[in-house]
């Protein structure tokens, strides 16, 4: 038997729950077919989320899933240019012709879909993005020059969370796009996803006891993002997310973390998201999205 998991027409951090719901049980008993034929758009979060599903299935030793490529020539060309298919073909049996990726990604892709497995990958990601980030953040989004450094620091800390806590590899992608419906401005988005143990299991041994019956995916996310706790006894740990949150406060940015069956967001005034969503369809690992909007007054 094969279960069809429909990829939403517009796949982003919110519609991602539909994709998770399509998997139904984890780990699934049936072979999965991810049907992207009707896809019209996908955010970096959506694209690396699909890869995470493929990776998690491989690590759970399930049958290799199928992935049908989008019907739209524009969409599949764009997905190819973000580097998505290059990694998808390692994890999925692809159905439909995926275009060959060009030598360079589109100009709104600051960092194409990139695997993160070790500390060296974090160096490589930050080194790769630093020069482009400076141009995009300052010139196009109107952020002050020092924002480039903070952006790189946030990217580094977000990627290190995979290496330090996930227990497996993950993915990162960075892109700018127009957040027309929600904000009416350009944004830069960092998306980081892994297929690892998730926040609840990562923190369980050291922190579950004090939460008693309340312990779950939502409380684990709150403990990590709001209280800055870490599974390590080293008191220096757990500051990365707190630091990212502080930066984002200054830029009216948003951070949203989904892990297991919960999603916790620090919601800026321009967004209508709820701070904590629980009892969501389960999805393995952790998915982080950091959104930084263009500032209202352009920097000269």
């Amino acid at each position: 038997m094969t279960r069809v998991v429909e990829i939403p027409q517009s796949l982003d951090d919110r519609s991602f729950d539909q994709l998770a719901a399509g998997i139904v049980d984890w780990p699934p008993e049936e072979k999965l077919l991810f049907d992207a034929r009707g896809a019209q758009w996908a955010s970096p979060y959506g694209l690396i989320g699909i890869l995470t599903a493929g990776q998690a299935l491989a690590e759970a030793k399930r049958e290799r899933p199928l992935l049908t490529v989008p019907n739209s020539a524009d969409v599949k060309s764009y997905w190819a240019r973000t580097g998505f298919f290059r990694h998808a073909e390692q994890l999925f049996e692809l159905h439909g012709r995926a275009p060959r990726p060009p030598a360079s990604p589109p100009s709104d892709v600051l960092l194409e879909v990139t695997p993160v497995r070790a500390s060296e990958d974090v160096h490589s990601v930050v080194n790769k993005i630093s020069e482009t980030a400076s141009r995009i953040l300052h010139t196009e989004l109107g952020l002050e020059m020092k924002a480039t450094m903070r952006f790189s620091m946030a990217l580094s800390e977000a990627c290190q969370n995979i290496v330090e806590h996930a227990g497996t590899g993950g993915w990162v992608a960075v892109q700018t796009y127009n957040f027309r419906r929600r904000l009416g401005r350009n944004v830069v988005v960092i998306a980081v996803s892994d297929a690892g143990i998730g926040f609840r299991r990562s923190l369980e041994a050291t922190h579950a006891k004090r939460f008693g019956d309340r312990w779950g995916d939502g409380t684990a996310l709150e403990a990590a993002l709001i209280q800055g706790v870490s599974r390590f006894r080293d008191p220096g740990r757990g500051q990365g997310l707190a630091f990212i949150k502080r930066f984002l406060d200054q830029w009216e940015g948003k951070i949203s973390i989904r892990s297991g069956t919960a999603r916790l967001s620090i919601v800026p005034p321009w967004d209508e998201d709820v701070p904590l969503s629980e009892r969501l369809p389960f999805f393995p690992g952790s998915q982080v999205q950091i959104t930084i909007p263009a500032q209202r007054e352009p920097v000269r």
Partner: protein
Amino acid sequence: MIQTICIGDLLQAELATPFRRLLTRPTGAAIRGRIERALAGSVCLTALLDFSDIELLDLSCADEVVAKLLMAVRDRAEQYVALFGLSEDQHEAIEHVLTHHHLAIAAVPPGRSAPRLLGWVPADARHAFTCLCTWGPLHPIGLARALGWSENRAATSLEDLTLLRLTRLAAGLYHPLPLA
């Protein structure tokens, strides 16, 4: 005597890349190891860690290189550490991690003007530090007179600075660290 340790040189020796970005905990721990080895062979009272060549310092590295180094050297009676050549965002990262650990360090700005304190320092101790940098070595009575404080308040602030290893007590006088 002051020992200057160029962090950019240590990073290049460690990673052998042209990039001057201090990123990730393993890199930070390796750099801290190199600094500790340099300190072990030194007879200088103050070690000045020179970050001038460092383009980016992430929070994990700030924790590994600066906070953990301060914890490692705090029992060494005659060895003090200060920073030099930090950019504004590096100040911010180091300030964040040191405050978290209740630690502090002096950072010397370019041009070697008055040092800036980073991290967790009580307000009175900050005033006392500025006073020491301006006036030189002081006894608690001298500080109390200079700031119009009670002797007890002045003594407490100087003790706080000494515990944070931002001053040195010698022959009953509190000395600013030699930084230039």
